Every structure is written in C-alpha cells, then in structure tokens.
C-alpha cells in the first residue's frame, strides 16, 4: 500500500515543491482519495447554500471581516480589556517561537506534564507539539483526524479534514500498530476505540490547548466550532485552558458571529452548523462546579502585522479558515496537501505562507496556480486570491518599479535570463512594426518551428503557426 509519509514540518524543505508534487501526481491513492473527497465537499457546499442569497451573504462576510481589520489595533485592546475583566489572562507573541514559549511557561508554572489539544491551525503554525515534546511535555491531539495524523507522525493535509489523504484501511492499520486496536473496516468500531483512548487523556491532562475561530471584543468571548466534542472536552475538563489565536481573528460585535458562522460551516463541509458552537467568556466562577480554573489567550502575530501594512495584501487576513478554496482547487486536488510542505496548503496557503516563511522559502507557491479563479469564487469573505497570487508573483521577481516589492524574500525568484526574455518580449510587442515583422517571419518559416518545447511538448503536440497571420490576412483584405 502506497502511503504518503511526510516528515514533520520543521524538517520539510518548502522549496522542494516540484518533486513532491510530481510524486503525488503519480500516486494513484492520493489522486483517488483527494478527487473523491474534494468532489464530495464541493457538492455538499453547493447543497448547503441552496435557497440562500449567497452573493449578498459573501458581501456581508467580507464586510464583517474588513470592518474588523479596519479597526484591528483598537479591537485587540478592547478584546484584551474585556477578556481580562472576565478573568482570562491575555498574552501577546510576536512570533511562533515566543508563542510556544508562553505556552510552555504556563505549563511549567502549573507543573504540567501533559497537554491535550483541540484542533488549532495556529498551533500547527507554531509547531507547538514538537516544541513541548522536546521539553518533556506530552502534547496529544484529540480531534480524530489530528489524532490519526499525529499517530502517523505526519502533518495535516487539509486544514479542516487533516487525515483526508488516508483510507480506512490505512487508519485501521495505524490504530492497530500504535494503540493495539483490532484491525477493522468498521468506522464505528474504529471511532469507538479512539473515543475510549482519548477519554482517558481528557481526564488526566493538566492543560487543554485550543484554537479560536472568532474572538469577540464586545464581550470578551472566544468562539469555537466542532463536531466531535473534543473541543468542549479540551476547554472544560483540564484545570487550565490555553487558547492560541492569530491576531486577525477578532471581530467587534457578538452579532458579527452570526454572519460568519452562517458562511463558515457551509463553506467548509456543507453543514448548516457544526454539532457544537462553543462560546467561552471566562474561567470557572466561584460557584460553578466544572470548567478550567485558569483560562489564557495567546495572541499570535507571526507575520500578520506585516501583511497588515499593505492595502492589497491585507485581504489575506480576512480568511476565516474554512478550506473552501482548497476544496475547489484543481491543483490541490491533484497534489494533495502535503506536497506544499507548509502549514497551510492550497490557495490560502499560497497567499499566506510567503508572509510567514518568506518569498525565498516559498518561491514556488505563488506560481503553482493556473489562476482559474475557482478559489476566489467560493471564498466566503471574498478574498481575491488570484489577484493576490499575481501580486506575490510580482513581488517574487521585483517586477514593478512603480510598486517596489515589500514582502520578505522578494526578488528571490528573479533570474536575469527570464527578466531578459520578458524585456525582449516587451520591447517587441510595444513596437507594432517590429511585432508585425517578427510574426510575419515566424509564419513564413513555421516549418522550422521546434517540435520539442520543454514542458509543453512533454504532454502535448506543439501549437502550429498559421501560414499567414491575422495581420497579414487583414492587410490583404484591404487591398
């Protein structure tokens, strides 16, 4: 059985995108799994939005996110104030490393040896599990998909469905090898085994770490969506709860949640709502009988404030992490999530990761797209993903003197040969007489056209030059 054994994130060379993509394309299991999964998610999303005014709803989503971003610093201060009033401790981290350190310090202060985790993409970004494990603190994933991926010592291949690249058979084998579960093709049996194993962990964990889907400044509330119940377990059972979130996740008003929730779950999995929508506004009160005695929030920057500087790139921060973009992406469907080698794969990965790891590291990401626009069409908050990809391509090659590039690692993809080719191309096409001369000659000598054109003719015959250009025929017509 062919499997996709990816090394942990910190060992992946993001630049090796091409060989990973190639391997994935020639892996029938990956092709099959992803095709089937993406087709299912796409049709579920379409069905969920039926009968709704989707375009107006997307406008609302975009406006809610933009309104929040327009006032981001003030909102973060208000959020901090409200959270603090509610008894939640607020921490700020400039980068992933600092965020990890904050979590570790809280654990150490509580003499915590085990952490149970709810699903959190930011914690993946931080590589938190690895950081804690290296320092003697066990960090166990409780979301079934994340649990599976962790047992396999892999990273998630999709931001919503982490184990989407695995078959039932593979999962059964994995659970058998790592936890002693009997081999079975019965999904209910496998799920029940995981439930038992994880229940022990919830009960005994010292700290629960979760992500945050939305943070409400007005009321100091952290909102979480989930289907399994592990999020509620993680944020209720252990005596200490630490929530990690990107700084862009804050919204001003509780009312904003209603619009975003309506878009998030339908866009992600085609559900009208997830099983649980959990809103946390404080630690256990004096008269309450359960819940954590301590709740912390870590506000993580990690490159987001850089994205924030630019009017066009700012749209990247509207993202509500639904995954619809990758569900609809023809590239993602063919290479799967691991090929990207980054925390966030797919279209959102391609526009976000260059800011987190630099355009030098992520140099293949912006170009790995045909700009088909399927992603932008389904994005619930109307992020113009294709436009941002083109902008990052320009940044990669320092291609616009009128708009000097700013993103870290810009210009790293510029090479003098290609730059010269475009210069030559531009020179010829900006001089109509020269263009007509050149193309006329090409038509005349079309039989000398090379039959092999690199990547093109690997899969296709070469296009055939016409005996006369349209220009020439129009000229003749006028005579």
């Amino acid at each position, binding site marked *: 059985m062919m499997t996709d054994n990816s090394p942990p994130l910190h060992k992946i060379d993001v630049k090796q995108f091409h060989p990973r993509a190639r391997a994935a394309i020639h892996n029938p299991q990956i092709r099959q799994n992803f095709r089937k999964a993406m087709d299912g998610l796409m049709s579920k999303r379409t069905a969920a939005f039926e009968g709704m005014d989707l375009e107006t709803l997307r406008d609302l989503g975009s406006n809610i996110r933009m309104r929040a971003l327009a006032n981001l610093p003030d909102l973060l201060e208000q959020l901090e104030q409200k959270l603090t009033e509610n008894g939640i401790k607020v921490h700020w981290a400039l980068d992933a490393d600092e965020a990890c350190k904050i979590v570790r310090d809280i654990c150490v202060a509580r003499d915590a040896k085990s952490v149970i985790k709810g699903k959190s993409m930011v914690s993946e970004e931080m590589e938190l599990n690895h950081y804690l494990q290296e320092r003697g603190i066990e960090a166990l994933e409780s979301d079934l998909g994340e649990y599976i991926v962790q047992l396999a010592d892999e990273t998630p291949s999709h931001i919503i469905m982490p184990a989407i690249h695995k078959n039932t058979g593979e999962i059964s084998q994995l659970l058998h090898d790592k936890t002693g579960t009997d081999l079975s093709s019965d999904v209910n049996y496998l799920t029940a085994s995981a439930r038992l194993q994880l229940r022990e962990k919830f009960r005994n964990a010292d700290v629960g770490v979760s992500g945050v889907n939305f943070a409400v400044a007005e009321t100091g509330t952290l909102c979480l969506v989930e289907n399994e119940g592990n999020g509620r377990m993680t944020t209720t059972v252990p005596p200490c709860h630490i929530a990690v979130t990107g700084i862009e996740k804050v919204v001003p008003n509780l009312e904003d949640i209603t619009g975003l929730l309506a878009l998030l779950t339908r866009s992600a999995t085609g559900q009208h709502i997830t099983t649980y929508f959990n809103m946390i506004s404080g630690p256990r009160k004096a008269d309450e009988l359960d819940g954590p005695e301590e709740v912390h929030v870590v506000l993580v920057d990690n490159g987001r404030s850089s994205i924030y500087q630019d009017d066009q790139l700012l749209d990247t921060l509207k993202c509500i992490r639904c995954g619809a973009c990758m569900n609809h992406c023809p590239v993602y469907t063919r290479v799967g999530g691991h090929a990207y080698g980054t925390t966030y794969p797919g279209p959102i990965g391609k526009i976000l990761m260059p800011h987190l790891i630099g355009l030098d590291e992520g140099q293949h990401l912006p170009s790995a797209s*045909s700009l*088909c626009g399927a992603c932008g069409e389904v994005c619930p908050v109307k992020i113009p993903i294709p436009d941002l990809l083109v902008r990052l*391509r320009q940044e990669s090659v320092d291609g616009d003197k009128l708009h000097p590039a700013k993103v870290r690692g810009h210009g790293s993809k510029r090479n003098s040969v290609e730059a010269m080719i475009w210069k030559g191309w531009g020179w010829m096409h*900006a001089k109509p007489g020269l263009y007509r001369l050149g193309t006329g000659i090409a038509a005349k000598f079309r039989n000398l056209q090379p039959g092999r054109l690199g*990547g093109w003719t690997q899969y*296709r015959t070469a296009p055939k030059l016409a005996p006369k250009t349209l220009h020439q025929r129009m000229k003749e017509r006028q005579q």
Partner: protein
Amino acid sequence: MSDPIKVYPSKPKKVYFYGTCLIDLFYPDAGMAGIQLLEREGIEVLFPEDQTCCGQPAFTSGYHDDARAVARSQLDLFPEDWPIVVPSGSCGGMMRKHYPDLFKGTPDDVRAAEIAGRVWELTDFLLNACHIKLTDLGDPATVAMHTSCSARREMGVGTVGPALLGQLDNVELVEQVRAEECCGFGGTFAVRHPEISGAMVSEKVATLVESGARNFVTTDCGCLMNIDGYAEKNRQPMKGQHILSFLWQRTNPKSEEAHDD
C-alpha cells in the same frame, strides 16, 4: 470577479476588433470568422493595425513593468468611443479587469479605465449587444462547450456559448462532468508546472471524451491548443475549434475552404 450587472451597449455602427496574439499567430481563421460574423450583423469592423498583445503573459508572470509597457502601446489603438470586442475570455479579462489596476497611479489611469469599460468578449457581444440570430446550415453534429475559466469567472459569460450553440438546430450540445474545472493551461503555468498541468489536461480530455462528443468549442485559444495538443499527442478522439469558427462555418453557406482553427 465578474461584473454583477452588465450594461450592454445597443448594437453599434462600428467596433474595434482586438484579435489577440494567439489568434494572430495560430488561429487567424477564428479571427476572420469573428470579423465576418460582426460584418454580417451590419457592423463596420475596425482592425487597428498596431495591435500586438494585451500584455497578459508578462502580467501573470509578475513582470508588470514589461506588461505595462506593452499594454500602454495598446491604449493608443481605441481613440473613438466604439466598443472593443475581443475573441478571448482571457485577453478580454486582462483588459477589462486588470488594465485599471495596472495603470492606477500613472498618467494613463483614466484612459485605461475608460478603455477597460468598453471591452467585451466577442461571443457575449454578439449574443447580448447584437442579439444575433443564427440559422444552422450544417449537418447534424454533437459538440461540447469548454468555457474557459477567464470567460466564466472574469468575463461572466458562462451561459453565452451554450446559448449560441442552442440556436443551432442541428447541433446537439453535450456537457462534460466537472465542466467548470480548469483545463490546466494557465498561460505560463503549463510550462512552469508541467506535471500538474498535464494531470489537469489529461482529466479534461477524458471527461470531454466521456461526454460522447468528439468535438469541442471554446472562446480561448490557450485552452484550445492545450486540450487539442494533449488529445493529439495521446491519440484521443477529441478535436477542438474556436467557437467563432464553428459558428461561422455552421451558418455561412460559402465556408468550405480548409481552415487552421
């Protein structure tokens, strides 16, 4: 993102015809067909001699200085207030959607935006501005429509091709599964990421063949050479044509000459 509400001009006396570089070099018959279709509607077609390329290849590659230099030379071609018709969703999209941004903050700011507002994809223009009525003179045929991503999403003309083909009584239009999925051309994407592009076009050809058609039509030459080229190399029973060539041949009794489209 496509215009939510398009306000079509009424049928004009003249239009500027912007052929596109791919049609110029590889599919001039499609260009001629488009011109003839317009002339048959009683419209005088102006063909600016100095047209070269809209600049898209450099633009999507990130070389915006070079794209702008080429595009600026093209801004001079449309001095009068006639609509500009383009036989391509992709080049039409470049001009209509991206010219305003490309020239923002430059002295050509206003001019570029004004020109962009006059750009129409040609089949869209024929259907919705000229209200063309087609009479099918051809033998029964089955065909699939490949709507390019830019035609669908940038120019918002996903329903136009099927509507025009629907006017042809002897043509049966079949639909391939996952019709909205990209064929994998993406301009330089096809050469920068050949395996991914290859995987995409391979599936596109397979779904087209599965639809029962042996021919397809499209507004975009990039898609055309991509899908056609794959089918030819891999001996798949699928052959494509620019939709303008197809429409002209079906409705013009005199078009029997060999064509390259």
